[in-house]
């Protein structure tokens, strides 16, 4: 099973990357200007709390010892105590992660469905008026600051037309039995619509352009010419052969895009007051809530690295040239 070995080796490589990122994070927060203890201890904590944290993170110990304690804590999922919320950072982050993921995935599924179809269509009808107009338009959407697009959509559809709420995930005072109940409620959809649309408009360019240029490449391949010589229908040639081959890298780019989107969420969540990881990171940094900022950053990094891994594995899985080596 050579591909299993390759998968394991890639996983190990990325585990190493994760370790490096964790180390960088540790150094950044310990070596920052000011009191090194500020990374974990807020002056307003009670003396007992302070001492408990000192002990837990070994803050009175030399740096290298702190490092091992830090890694040990991480492995147990211990990220420290949030200054603002006075609760474990891990709890806070696990509570916010679903909001971020649902926003990310709904917008990306929208973007990829549209992008793949439109990209394939543009490749098929290449050289036409549609293409000449569409490509600059798509490039323009890639050039937009996401938060600005969100502002414009908010100003029009929320403040002017009043079609959608201006921010958050639920009406004031509303409560739901579970996250599932919230996500399946109709009101939630109206809260999700604008931020998801904002991210989707920004994200569709990548799959679209990728699909289009892959299709154009594949259409020049010998096997597509051969499919025509075989007298297969135009539909069979374009969909079964050209699109199927062009789709491979686009599918793997989905995983990469999840990672990128997560970073972009930081601003868009802020515009729409979406209670997600990104907004929390911004708020935590603004409020000097370092444990929380550290935790949110780490969580985002984990997802990014995980998605890079999934992209690699997906490619190996979908491409018979690798999966059937």
């Amino acid at each position: 099973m050579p591909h299993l070995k390759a998968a394991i080796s890639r996983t190990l490589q990325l585990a190493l990357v994760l370790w490096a990122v964790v180390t960088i994070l540790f150094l950044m927060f310990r070596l920052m200007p000011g009191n090194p203890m500020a990374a974990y201890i807020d002056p307003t904590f009670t003396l007992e709390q302070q001492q408990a944290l000192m002990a837990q993170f070994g803050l009175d110990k030399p740096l290298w010892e702190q490092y091992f304690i830090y890694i040990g804590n991480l492995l147990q999922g211990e990220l420290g105590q949030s200054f603002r919320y006075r609760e474990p950072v891990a709890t806070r982050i696990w509570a916010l992660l679903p909001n971020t993921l649902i926003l990310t995935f709904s917008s990306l599924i929208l973007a990829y469905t549209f992008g793949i179809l439109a990209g394939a269509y543009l490749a098929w009808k290449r050289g036409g008026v549609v293409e000449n107009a569409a490509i600059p338009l798509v490039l323009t959407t890639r050039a937009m600051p996401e938060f600005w697009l969100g502002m414009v959509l908010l100003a029009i559809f929320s403040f002017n037309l009043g079609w959608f709420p201006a921010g958050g995930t639920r009406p004031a005072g509303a409560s739901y039995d579970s996250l599932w109940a919230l996500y399946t409620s109709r009101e939630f959809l109206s809260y999700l619509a604008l931020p998801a649309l904002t991210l989707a408009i920004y994200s569709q360019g990548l799959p679209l352009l990728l699909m289009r240029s892959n299709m154009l490449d594949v259409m020049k391949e010998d096997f597509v010419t051969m499919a025509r010589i075989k007298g297969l229908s135009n539909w069979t040639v374009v969909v079964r052969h050209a699109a199927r081959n062009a789709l491979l890298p686009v599918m793997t780019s989905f995983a990469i895009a999840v990672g990128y989107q997560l970073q972009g969420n930081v601003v868009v969540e802020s515009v729409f007051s979406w209670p997600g990881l990104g907004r929390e990171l911004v708020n935590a940094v603004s409020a000097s809530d370092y444990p929380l900022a550290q935790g949110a950053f780490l969580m985002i990094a984990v997802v990014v690295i995980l998605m890079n891994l999934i992209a690699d594995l997906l490619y190996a899985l979908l491409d018979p040239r690798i999966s059937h080596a």
Partner: protein
Amino acid sequence: MLDATIGKRPGFVRRVFQSLRLPLNDPFAVFGLSIYGLFVLTAIFADQIAPYDPTEILYTPDYMLAADLRPGEDGHILGTTSLGRDIFSQIVHGSRSALLIGLTAAFMVALIGSIVGVVSGYFRGWIDIVLMRLADIAFGIPFLPFVIVLAAFLQPSIWNVVIAMALVLWRDTARVIRSQVLTLRSRGYVDAARVAGSSDMKIILRHIAPNILPMSFLYGSIAIGWAILTEASISFLGFGDPQSISWGYMLQDAFASQALAKQAYYWFVPPGVCIILVVSAGFFITRGYENILFPKLGR
């Protein structure tokens, strides 16, 4: 020197310019280049073009604060902010920080990325393994969160974006250039140069670099866009440099001052449009390049 022959050799600048292979026959690229030109001119002559100091709080002739004026009122082309500052003047001055950040960041990214890519791809072996693991690590760092954290620890400054980009974003350029160099390296003429007794340095300068330069330029122009977008995001989130007027700062100002609810489109639309223009200009140039560098992608 790069040129083997004696006698008529074009000037160094001209040769570098030529090897950039600017896509001057692609209408999009020309459009992009003209936007760049306009943008640079605006930044240089900002003081002459802008009718007001962008940070000056203005008053109407009847000594009222000139706040929230609509476009055209009292001669303010794009109106004023809630603090009574001239929006058009801010737009004009915003081009300065955009240009500064865009160019320096792009230069850093293209330079670091190209050097890493060339060294990694040409020498291969352990140095390649080390550099590519570093790139993997850079790919594992979420960029925007990284800039935010960095901005929180360092003094607020427009250079944070540049530093963060230099630390993280070289990775894309390096990977692409490395694979390009690997291809070039397997070309017969590189082997031929070795057999002809050329040193590694000479081969890199003479046979590899001229083929890499357009690629570096291409990634540089993408990086200009990234830098401007990142700076805008950072300023919008409030981690920007409060001393300098940037388009991102303007958007933050507008957002915080309820410009959306006030329906003050004249305030938050123009900075966004400026960003789009400059960033898409980079993309258009890139596209023109792709038609040159990867003709197979052409229509």
